[in-house]
């Protein structure tokens, strides 16, 4: 499996989808979370919606996604986005809400407003929370992708797993499972851990 290149091509295919969906979710989720925290109107209308939808397992978006996008690449990316978007939004919102109110008052009196306030004070202030959200979002995205690929044949690691079952090849099934675990652990424990630690150190939240 690894020799004939099927594993490799399936992995790149899965990771490509994941990257698309995840980056899209981050690009929408972080600003959405910041805005929800800052505007009362958004807090009233959007916050309950986000919390409610979070109760929905992400794979439940698949039928709707297939209806909207057909059996296409977009359908599975949509599931990935919906899987991680809400977690990222909620964490970004919490991050902004936990920024020291003193810093907000100080920014006002120091004359920092508008875009500079959002980009220079609010987002950096909320960054420890945002990074935690991104990490959580990543693991949700990874789960959503695998579930999606298992159910709907379109190449990728999930499909490889399903194929293993169909040809009664337990070795292939286990091999792919290990592969999924390794990717998950490497990204979660290595990439995110380094970023998180760096942020926490810089922010003075953890010992250097």
């Amino acid at each position, binding site marked *: 499996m690894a020799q004939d290149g099927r594993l490799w091509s399936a992995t790149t295919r899965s990771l490509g989808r994941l990257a698309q969906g995840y980056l899209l979710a981050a690009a929408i989720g972080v600003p959405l979370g910041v805005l929800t925290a*800052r505007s009362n109107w958004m807090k009233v209308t959007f916050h309950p919606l986000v919390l409610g939808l979070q109760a929905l397992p992400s794979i439940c978006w698949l039928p709707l996604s297939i209806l909207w996008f057909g059996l296409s690449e977009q359908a599975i990316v949509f599931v990935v986005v919906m899987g991680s978007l809400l977690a990222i939004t909620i964490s970004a919102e919490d991050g902004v809400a936990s920024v*020291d*109110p*003193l*810093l*907000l*008052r*100080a*920014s*006002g*009196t*120091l*004359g*920092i*407003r508008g875009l*500079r*306030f959002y980009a*220079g*004070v609010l987002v*950096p*202030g909320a*960054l420890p929370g945002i990074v935690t959200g991104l990490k959580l979002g990543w693991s949700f995205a990874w789960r959503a992708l695998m579930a999606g690929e298992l159910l709907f044949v379109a190449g990728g690691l999930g499909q490889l797993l399903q194929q293993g079952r169909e040809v009664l090849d337990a070795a292939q099934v286990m091999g792919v499972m290990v592969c999924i675990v390794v990717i998950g652990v490497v990204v979660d424990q290595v990439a995110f851990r380094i970023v998180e630690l760096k942020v926490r150190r*810089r*922010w*003075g939240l953890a010992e250097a």
Partner: protein
Amino acid sequence: MLTDLSRRVREKIADRFAVRNLLVPSRRREGPAKITVSQVRHAFRNEVVALDDVNIDVHHGEFVCLLGPSGCGKSTLLYALAGLMTPSGGNITVDGVTVERPGPDRVLMFQEPALFPWLTVRQNLTFVLHARGLTRREADERARIFIHRVRLDGFEDALPHQLSGGMRQRVSLARALALDPEVLLMDEPFAALDAQTRSAMHDLLQSIWMRDRKTVVFVTHNVREALVLGDRVIVMAGRPGRVLQDLEVRLVRPRDPDDDNLVALSRQIRDALTRAQRATTPMPGAKEPHDAEVPGPPDRIPSRTPPPVGAGF
């Protein structure tokens, strides 16, 4: 022997008068005031009257200390000056313009340094300077000057959490001064520091102030601090918050907190405060005030209402 005694008596009387003359009710000054506080009153939602008919004029280049026990409304008044809260009545103007929202012409320094924790010392200064429209080069140069002025050369690239409390407050001071505000508002900025650091900060602030002569409004509950720093000491009393005395301090600068005259003056003010408190409180506190702290019942109204988060922007 008799002549000796009479000389000593005369000296004592002269001393008394000398002390008297060092602290006089401040006179009305000519010319337009920099800051005008007129008929300001403020009641909190729980109907505690924080300020009741407060009228103060501050002139350009004056160092004014607002002194009083906690709950006398001094911090509320300062927050109103900064534009972080709107008093329920009256009017506050700076240079003739009514204060409505916070702005960099009236920089407020808090009891905590309020530095951006993810920025280095230098970046904390340049960030706010960029916000005021300075170019990168101008901001760097200005940051260098003011970091030097608070004697933090060599710490430009340190992060706030790597500095001591006093150093952080110095960065905060440098940041406020670098903005070159019309008015500098200070809310007990040294209250959280230990006595030695605080007195070093007083020296530093005095020397910086003697050079720039900025208009400063400084809130404190420490009588000696007020006397060391202020040209004018406005003594306030609580319940309802009001101005008790408006005094002009005529001690030569730089001032020493252990100077005999200063100590005598601080006793005078403390006595006045205790009398005022007795007059308003039905059950006078039997406890004697210690140190140079203003006597104030601890179970009173909180001294400051933080304005709603992010008020004003």
